[in-house]
């Protein structure tokens, strides 16, 4: 199934906004592993994942989900 990846902060220097193919029935943890395997630069940077604008998402990632890769915030 297809999801959309939005990288933010420093991660946007390594990957751009993109569509990404995943098998069905994938959790956030499995998604993170898949991304880090596809894009090794993500292995050395700390980030949380938001699924449809929700952090701490549990359960299976839905079809067409908007996945944001969020390094530590630095606003203000």
């Amino acid at each position, binding site marked *: 199934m297809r999801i959309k990846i939005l990288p933010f902060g420093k991660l*946007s220097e390594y990957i751009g906004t993109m569509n990404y193919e995943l098998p069905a029935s994938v959790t956030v943890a499995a998604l993170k592993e898949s991304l880090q395997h596809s894009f090794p630069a993500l292995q050395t940077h700390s980030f949380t994942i*938001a699924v449809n*604008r929700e952090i701490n998402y549990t359960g299976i990632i839905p079809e067409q989900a908007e996945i944001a890769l969020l390094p530590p915030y630095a606003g203000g």
Partner: protein
Amino acid sequence: MHKTPKNIFVQGAIEPTFIAESIAKHSTQTGIGAHSIFLGQVRSDKTDGKMVQAIEYTAYEEMALSEMHKIREAAFEKYALTCLHVHHSLGVISAGQICLFVFASAPHRRAATEACTELVERIKDTLPIWGREIFTDATHQWKTNR
């Protein structure tokens, strides 16, 4: 009641005249006894002999607005406030310019000052906003909050 989240983002720096106008607009609200204002200004940090010339702010805007909405609702629950306004810059903001404006108004000063302080911390901790520090030699590094 479903409210559309207010847009806190402005393109470019927050002008001092905007801040003055915001204060002036509240003069008709005569139930207000205190305003507490926080202004964040881009600081010319020095790292490894290089100076910050500007910060370029980016954000996950939809998520930031929904998170800000939650912060705002919680502040009105906790503090006896009349008004709360937050403005955060996006884009390139030069050192010396204002990039964050938090403005809390209340009948009494303690609610205004405490709400303003708490809001600044929550904004910095929980809003998905990032800053790319641009040095005078055109190199950059990503900002980390203390």
